């Protein structure tokens, strides 16, 4: 009886896994077919495995290298700026803790919940001549991620005792040295969490570049795959190859850092 129940549960687990796996499988397998076979959108193996041809073709016509470059620049700039700005802000907010900073904390909570007002943001960037620039978009990411990630840092600073600061101050350290030499090295775990959250947020984002980087040579990976689909909707083999290619960097990132990503996103969500 016991083993029967166990078997049923195992079968259920397999079924649920396949609900998740089958769409992924279809995407990958059809990216290796020719156009006529891929149009079937089915589960069958290709009669001839076009292992590289489709990918080579998409790589060139979808301008993947350029998009990869754009996504990387945005993500890199964004992540660095976010870690730098949020950790410093959070440190002061947590250590000072006066009435002004309590109001700031209320603003942060509102910022986590409320949506960005995209049209007036566009207007603002337009006025500053920052539309269709990497800097403009990076600033938007800093602003949208600021509240959440600063909040994460604040709760982390609660765990670093003030005595640490005082000891360093007695040793005669300056205010820059205090943060960058004494405190910042202690932030490794929370920096990793912030990095992962900001990375996922920016790398996969579609809305902001869709409005603000709407010019072919500034397209990010998410944008290229969207517009590629618009132009080649009937060539499913190429569309699937593009989807796989666009997803590969984040999959590699996930495979290497799986444990940290899962715990980072969990910590982030629960505290937030």
């Amino acid at each position, binding site marked *: 009886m016991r083993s029967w129940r*166990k078997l049923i549960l195992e079968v259920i*687990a*397999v079924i649920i*896994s396949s*609900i*998740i796996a089958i*769409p992924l499988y*279809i995407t990958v397998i059809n990216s290796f077919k020719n156009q006529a076979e891929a149009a079937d*959108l*089915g*589960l069958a193996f290709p009669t001839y495995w076009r292992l590289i041809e489709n990918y080579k073709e998409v790589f060139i016509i979808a301008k993947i290298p350029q998009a990869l470059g754009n996504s990387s620049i945005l993500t890199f700039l964004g992540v660095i700026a976010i870690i730098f*700005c949020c950790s*410093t*802000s959070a*440190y*002061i907010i947590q250590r000072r803790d006066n009435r002004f900073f309590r109001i700031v904390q209320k*603003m942060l909570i509102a*910022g986590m*919940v*409320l*949506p*960005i*007002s*995209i*049209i*007036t*943001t566009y*207007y*603002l960037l337009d*006025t500053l001549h920052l539309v269709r620039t990497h800097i403009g978009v990076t600033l*938007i990411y*800093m*602003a949208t991620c600021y*509240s959440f990630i*600063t909040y994460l840092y604040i709760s982390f600073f609660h765990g670093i005792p003030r005595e640490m600061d005082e000891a360093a*101050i007695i040793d005669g350290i300056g*205010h820059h040295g205090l*943060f960058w030499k004494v405190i910042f090295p202690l932030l490794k775990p929370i920096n990793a969490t912030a990095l992962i959250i900001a990375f996922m947020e920016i790398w*996969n984002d*579609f*809305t902001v570049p*869709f*409005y603000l980087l709407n010019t072919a040579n500034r397209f990010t*990976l*998410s944008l290229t*795959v*969207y517009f590629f*689909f618009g132009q080649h909707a009937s060539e499913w083999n190429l*569309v*699937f190859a593009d*989807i796989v290619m*666009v997803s590969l960097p*984040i*999959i590699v990132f*996930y495979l290497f850092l799986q444990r940290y990503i899962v*715990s980072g996103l*969990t910590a982030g*969500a*629960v505290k*937030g």
Partner: protein
Amino acid sequence: MLRKQYYRYTMFLPGFAVFCLFFVLPSFGSFFYGFTNLDSGFTFTRFVGFENFINLMREPDNFIAFKNTLIFAFLTTFFKVGLGLLLAIFVNLKLKTTLYLRSMLFFPVILSTIAVSLAFTAMLHPERGILNEFLRWVHMDFLAQSWLTNREIVMYSVSMVEIWKYTGLSVILFLAALQSIPKEVTESAQLDGATGWKSLRHITFPLLLPVFNTSIVLHLIGGLKVFDLIIALTGGGPGNASMVINTLIYKSFTQGRNGEATAASFILFLLVLFIVLMVNRLLPKHETER
């Protein structure tokens, strides 16, 4: 004196200034420009009062976006949290296959929504898509649908994709909470005769309540802000059948009616605020929560 010297405002300011300039300012801006006839070149000639808001609410083509946003947010939250809880308890049983299932579940969460949505336009293809093929294979042809082109069901189809993608996130949240329940608690309950459902009902659920509340709020906010999923799956179609507030904003924007787009974005702002405050008040609080 020590504080002023070592915890300087100049250190706090860079991040906060960017936040104020690029997040807070545009939000207040929408309060102002929503009442003007702002055009595609961002100039306006007059204040139009509530005209933009009335247009948005009165036109059936626009109004459907508000209805759809609410349906989408509540429906997907219900399933993501419900299925997430069930699957977390299931995965926590630690069978051979559940370990595999666990890493599988989280996989869609990390993928880009655009990539997932485009792949799902293939899965939901009315003639050759795998879903309909499967339904025909098990002889349930009557269930086979034009998932993304039937006005009646398109919102449910897109919700299904969202649920497929994000249930893993709430599974992971619940799982973390489940594993933080100390073994002694469940064991002593077992000694007192609480097994199976009883232990679940009186021990596990109350301890999961905080995570339960967090994930409801988290998914509701995410659902209200939905944009890329709809753009990639249906583009708001057929007709306007799957329009949501964010696609409505985009439509008004591309048509050069920025005043109206701003008003719509202001309504979304208020809607999110209202729903989060409401839900926070209505959710069951437990005495173990501090």
